[in-house]
């Protein structure tokens, strides 16, 4: 009742993750490819956008800090 899954499949998925993390292949493409079967295609750009957007926020705060700040 708590979940609707096949325990064997769970183990397979975990092995995929462990292989990714333990083999030292940390690039985003490789990590994504291990999750590609779960509806992940074509959405990688959104992760760069969210980080980039927040980097822009921080730059904006830095600018406001320089403009109005007292430190």
């Amino acid at each position, binding site marked *: *009742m708590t979940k609707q899954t096949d325990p064997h499949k769970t183990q397979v998925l975990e092995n995929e993750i462990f292989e990714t993390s333990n083999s030292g292949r940390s690039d985003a493409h490789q990590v994504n490819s291990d999750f590609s079967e*779960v*509806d992940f295609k074509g959405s990688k750009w959104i992760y760069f956008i*969210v980080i980039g957007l927040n980097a822009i926020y921080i730059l904006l705060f830095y600018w406001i*800090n320089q403009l109005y700040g*007292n430190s």
Partner: protein
Amino acid sequence: MSSIDWIILGLVLAFIVLYGLAKTRNQSGVSDFVTGGNKASWWTIGLSVMATQASAITFLSTPGQAFHDGMGFVQFYFGLPIAMVIISLFFVPIYHRLKVFTAYAYLEDRFNVQTRTLTAVFFLIQRGLAAGITIFAPSIILSAVLGWDLVGLNILIGTLVVVYTVTGGTRAVNITQKQQMGVIFGGMFLAFLMLLNFLPLEVGLDEALTIAGAQDKMNILDFSFDFDNRYTFWSGIIGGSFLALSYFGTDQSQVQRYLSGRTLRQSQMGLIMNGMLKVPMQFFILLIGVLVFVFYQFNTAPLNFNPTNERMVMDSPYASEYKVLDQEKDLLMGQIQTLQLTYLDAEDPAQKDLLQKEISALNTRQLSLRKEARELILAADKDAETNDKDYVFIHFILTQLPVGLIGLLLAVILSAAMSSTASEINALGATTAVDLYQRHRPGHSEKHYLKITRYFTLIWGVIAILVACTAPLFDNLIQLVNIIGSIFYGNILGVFLAAFFIRPIKGPSIFWAALINQAFVITLFVLDLFEVIKLPYLWLNVIGCVAVIIIAFVVQFFRGANQ
């Protein structure tokens, strides 16, 4: 409060509750109740995730934080977008793939049932307390400023939430949170516009920020490694990432929001929406607090924003001394107002510099008057809570905003309280039913489990109300919730990170490591509380997370040696 405000407040709250009830009457089973039948779109999830995190404390305490300490608190949220990306990439696909109802169910697959039960219990302890504080925070403040009965208000907020959460489950929580976020965004934007409108004609946004900056309120970023400073860029990026990773990735009150997504992609996009909007939203709320500060550079503010304190000291033998302080404060504020206008008109940098120093000196004197006022309040009642940060914004709302808008802003505060509480008791009920009851008492019918889940939701609603009725007022309410979170979150996150990424760690090792580590983290917190060590609470997240993994390796080593 006028009858128009009462009508607006009543209509907004009644509409949200009745709409939530009407739309979600029929639940077919536990799946429908806990995950909302997996029908939520990405923007429903995004709004729901934001509404869950943004409690009434956010809207009462955050402007007060900016009023006193400036904009630096925004740094606390810098780690959140990083956490959103990590959770979307690694956590959500696994939860969706396994079709779990709770985050802790995954831990049984990976480790063992003991670890699942232990993390679920840790969650229930900290979230059960936090749910009470989520109700208590607005109640204590509204009861003080409006004279409403504290216990009655706790029961009212709790009961409204319990009614639609017990009946409609996750779908009712999602649906009502959309309306609540609409009220919150609309109300806060109107408050911002009114604040700008209330400033003198010569003072626009640019001038207001110049005035605030001259009084150290616009120091947004702090790149120092000063452990005495709770909010720096580094504590926000590192400590904030861990806290957000833990809160959004492993806290069932958030996990349950995105598990209700129609597809994996919808769940991921909901979290990404939060990652894009959270930092500017917090910046905006802090900016409102800074504008309140600027407003009170041109208008008279009370010596203490908590009206209960002022009434109490005026009825005490210290009333005459308090009146003297109040008169001096009024005189100072008149001088500050004149100098601020002169400062804005001045063009010579040397003159501006001189004026700024004079204004700073007057503001410093004003601060010392407030400190003396707090001492008088304490002399009149040694148990009085003199910290008035949480009362600054509500004081402004009630004394300055026009009729109608007061009712709307009170609806904002109560909506925020209800949206967070609903998610919390929804998750507490689900975790108790699924991870504890259902897991250890299998074999009953779907109807039985649905009934039990509703009972547990009701019980947690009652517990939250009881905690709210007995909670003492802390130094700063928003910090209290974050401190409770930090004590448990790091440990739980470490268990989940080990589950996701560290293959050699096995179930028995992580279980004992989690127990030992929790005692270790609580010890660190107590040592900091009694000033034996200096450790800002955000770092408990990092230490708790790393320590549980290290301890698990040590336990595993000794277990291996014994075997």
